[in-house]
């Protein structure tokens, strides 16, 4: 790993694999557990997070030289919350059904540690272009973990994929897969497998 913060496209790429926020830093776990029982909800959640990360990182990076050190965290939360409320309002207006299904989880993007982590850890000290790429990268990195988990949980738990029946109707549903505990198992197994793969690659 090179010294100093990654710049340009590197800021984006490293978030997908090397420094993936979920696999590497175990951040954003609560939402990963909560929404991954339906692929559609997961997709909306991921898009919401990518948007929030991108906009928050941009705003915080633009303001980085004028934000007083003492209140920087308060300002970051303010910025993040404003964008998340924006998403919630837009979803309510244009995708009311999905908004209804996601319930409180859209609002909980505010407390997703990835967003705060990227704004405090990267956007506060880097140029807007790099910060935006870093934010988008972290969002995509998060999606790369959530979507596969959702794609496993939804068919096994409900027999559907994206709301469409894919398994035969006499399929015995694994109720376990839809409720939160299976999120723990699925996520932990996923991280375990990916990390084992990563370390074996590093040794070689």
């Amino acid at each position: 790993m090179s010294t100093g913060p990654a710049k340009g496209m590197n800021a984006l790429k490293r978030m997908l694999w090397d420094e993936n926020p979920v696999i590497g830093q175990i951040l954003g776990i609560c939402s990963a557990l909560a929404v991954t029982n339906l692929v559609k909800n997961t997709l909306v959640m991921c898009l919401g997070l990518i948007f929030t990360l991108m906009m928050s990182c941009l705003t915080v990076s633009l303001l980085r030289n004028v934000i007083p050190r003492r209140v920087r965290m308060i300002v970051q939360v303010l910025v993040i919350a404003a964008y998340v409320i924006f998403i919630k309002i837009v979803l309510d207006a244009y995708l009311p059904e999905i908004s209804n299904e996601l319930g409180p989880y859209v609002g909980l993007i505010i407390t997703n540690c990835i967003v705060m982590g990227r704004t405090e850890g990267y956007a506060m000290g880097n140029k807007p272009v790099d910060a935006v790429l870093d934010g988008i990268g972290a969002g995509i990195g998060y999606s790369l973990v959530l979507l596969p988990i959702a794609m496993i949980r939804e068919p096994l738990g409900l027999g559907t994929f994206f709301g469409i029946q894919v398994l035969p109707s006499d399929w015995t549903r694994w109720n376990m897969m839809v409720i939160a505990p299976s999120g723990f198992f699925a996520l932990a197994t996923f991280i375990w497998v990916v990390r084992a793969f990563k370390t074996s690659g590093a040794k070689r």
Partner: protein
Amino acid sequence: MNEKIRTVLFTLAITAVFVFMVSGINSLLADKISANRTIARQKVILKLFGLLPADRQVDDTAIPALFAAETSPISFPSQPQYECYRPGRSSAKLFVIAFKGQGFWDNISGFIALNLDNNTISGLEFTQHGETPGLGGRISEPEFKARFAGKPFSTVRSDGLRLKMVAEGSAKNPDEVDGITGATGTSNAIEKIVNSTINNFLKLNEGGNNL
């Protein structure tokens, strides 16, 4: 400038900017959001009157007009908050009644359709619930809601209920409805809500004398 004063001013200024932004977007879209909520409710009521079959595609924008033409609200002076509708164009004794009650986790609200011509339930829909996904959450699946269709409610059982939720797959008598395995709390809550909604409506209606 004094650092402390600068900090306070900056915080106030940025808060004002974002508050202004968020409330601006909110007021721009507030009408659309409340219209969406109304349409969602009206769709449920129309569906219970059998006016929105699956093969009939109605655009969301046409829902309010359809609702106004096809339903007529009923009010009871003793309970001004009571929400109840009957068909606007036929004299069928079909009533769609709003209900709300405590579920296992959160309030459960929705509408029930009662047919007083033959004293059976003709349908049930939930507009809001917070039951466990995959367990109690199954109440919002069409298969569960269909369990109530055609159930008679005119007779009261020896245990005081009109309809009893029983173990899944064991409903044999007309006054029994299959509950959900693994969601006894939700099943009991639904039993209570459905029975009290029917009781309350029959009491208000006083055997049809009021309508």
